[in-house]
């Protein structure tokens, strides 16, 4: 494998909700995607507008960014083979609580796919994917793409407890090497996901680290990776208003004190570019 996929041009589209059911660690939103809806590259996201598509409501006003978890369809997991976009989310505030109220048959306006995808590993590198919390959703397409390409990878997932481990069954179904860590020890290592990461870092073989999750976790992963001299890519989850580079609301500071837009220059960044101490 080598370079990143060239991402498709983003679109605005109204998608029908097929299902929106709670499962382990998250709610799985399945949206029926028209054929024109572009496939997202690993690490890309969509903006989901929460105010319906019929009569406009102005509250809540802003759309919410969500990783494009997976596009099914061509080789779909849906029983009837419909092309579907899946999004996995946790209820953390008002917007996600409203999303959870959506019923099959409702329509949602989406803009996407957006953002710069994960760069692929260089030949000879092993990919190590480290996910925590809702960040797990951003890593699945990367894992699937690498697996399909036969590239070496391993996946480490962390959460508060085993009930919080979103997408676990999906990763298991991929059949990739998988290690877990939970704060309460209910699944895998007892403690932070950095614990199972450390042994690999020093193993000597060239690695490329990909991390998405809570800021403290990403900072810890980035620091370990830097110390061990492995390239490391972080996918950030900032508050966003637009998602496509016009509000400048999602800026993060780089080490050279420049500002980058998470939605346009990211969400995936080389950890070395970022001022880790200034992440929100």
């Amino acid at each position, binding site marked *: 494998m080598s370079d990143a996929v060239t991402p498709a041009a*983003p679109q605005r589209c109204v998608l029908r909700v097929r299902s929106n059911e709670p499962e382990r660690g998250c709610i799985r939103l399945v949206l029926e995607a028209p054929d024109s809806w572009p496939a997202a590259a690993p690490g890309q996201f969509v903006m989901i507008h929460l105010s319906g598509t019929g009569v406009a409501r*102005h509250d809540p*006003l802003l759309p919410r960014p969500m990783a494009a978890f997976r596009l099914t369809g061509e080789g779909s997991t849906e029983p009837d083979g419909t092309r579907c976009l899946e999004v996995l989310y946790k209820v953390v505030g008002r917007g996600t609580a409203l999303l959870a109220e959506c019923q099959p048959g409702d329509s949602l306006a989406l803009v996407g796919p957006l953002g710069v995808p994960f760069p692929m590993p260089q030949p000879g590198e092993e990919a190590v994917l480290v996910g925590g919390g809702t960040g797990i959703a951003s890593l699945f397409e990367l894992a699937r793409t690498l697996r399909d390409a036969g590239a070496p990878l391993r996946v480490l997932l962390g959460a508060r407890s085993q009930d919080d481990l979103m997408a676990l069954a999906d990763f298991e179904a991929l059949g990739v090497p998988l290690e877990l860590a939970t704060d309460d020890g209910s699944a895998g290592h007892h403690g932070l996901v950095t614990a199972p990461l450390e042994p690999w870092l020093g193993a000597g073989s060239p690695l490329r680290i990909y991390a998405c999750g809570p800021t403290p976790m990403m900072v810890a992963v980035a620091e370990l990776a830097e110390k061990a001299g492995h390239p490391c890519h972080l996918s950030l989850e900032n508050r966003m208003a637009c998602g496509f*580079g*016009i*509000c*400048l609301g*999602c800026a993060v500071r780089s080490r050279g004190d420049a500002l980058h837009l998470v939605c346009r220059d990211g969400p995936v960044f080389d950890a070395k570019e970022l001022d880790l101490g200034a992440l929100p």
Partner: protein
Amino acid sequence: MSTTPDLSVEFAGIPLRNPVLTASGTFGYGVELEPFLDLRRLGGFVAKSLTLEPRHGNPPPRIAETPAGMLNAISLENVGVEAFIEEKLPAVPDGVPVIASVFGTEIELYAEVCKRLTGVPKVAGLEINASCPHVKAGGIEFGQSPDALGRLVRACRQATTLPLVVKLSPNVTSIAEMARVCEGEGASGIAAINTVQALEVDVETRRPMLSNGLGGLSGPAIRPVALRMVWQCAQAVSIPICGVGGISTGEDAVAFLLCGATAIQVGTASYLNPAAAGEVADGIAAYCERHGVASVRELIGALEHS
């Protein structure tokens, strides 16, 4: 039956295909929206406010959601006037009038930027941002004091031959007075309003939602306030007015025209729907057709009020 309505207007001496502009700071430098919207569907666009030197703005978080609105404290991050001219303008499609928005922390800096932009191809006019509510030194004083505003407009007027639009702050006791000051100093037009100064608090962390503390409120929440202020400006001056604030549909835009605006700007709505400005233009046309209005100019100031 009905012929296509004539949507063209002239605002501050600039002929526009239709009355729909995009608001400064909500449309990037014009090219970011290309996947979603052909700029040529619009009357024109107002670019992000430019300062003489590039500016970085505030650390995150810079935005927060409020009921039917949003707060921002971007703090006038921009590439600077040189980079705008060299790197951004060339990408704007021909035939789309660009109004460059100008900001500075001192009157001389505003005037410098005005000078630099004068004579640059594609730049059809200037909009003086006298009203950024969250820059600590700068906009707020100019926009809130008639004296300072007068001096600012005078200096800019002398610095350029381009049409000069002054964008007013809503955070004043009398916006009509501010509009009269601008007219008196030779402004070609008024844009009203900029964001309303506001604060949102995260009760869990007990901190403001924005790193800057205060921010500017925009979106549908402020539309009735913007409409009132446009109406007051239209009563007070005879230079043309550009209505800004919470516009997201053709009907919203028509309300501003009825209150006396010659053109309007779409701001926050573009964040939710990158094609919003185009849809507003279509919505105005549809309104005109539905109501047998031959030219959109018939609507300007046509509010019936006892």
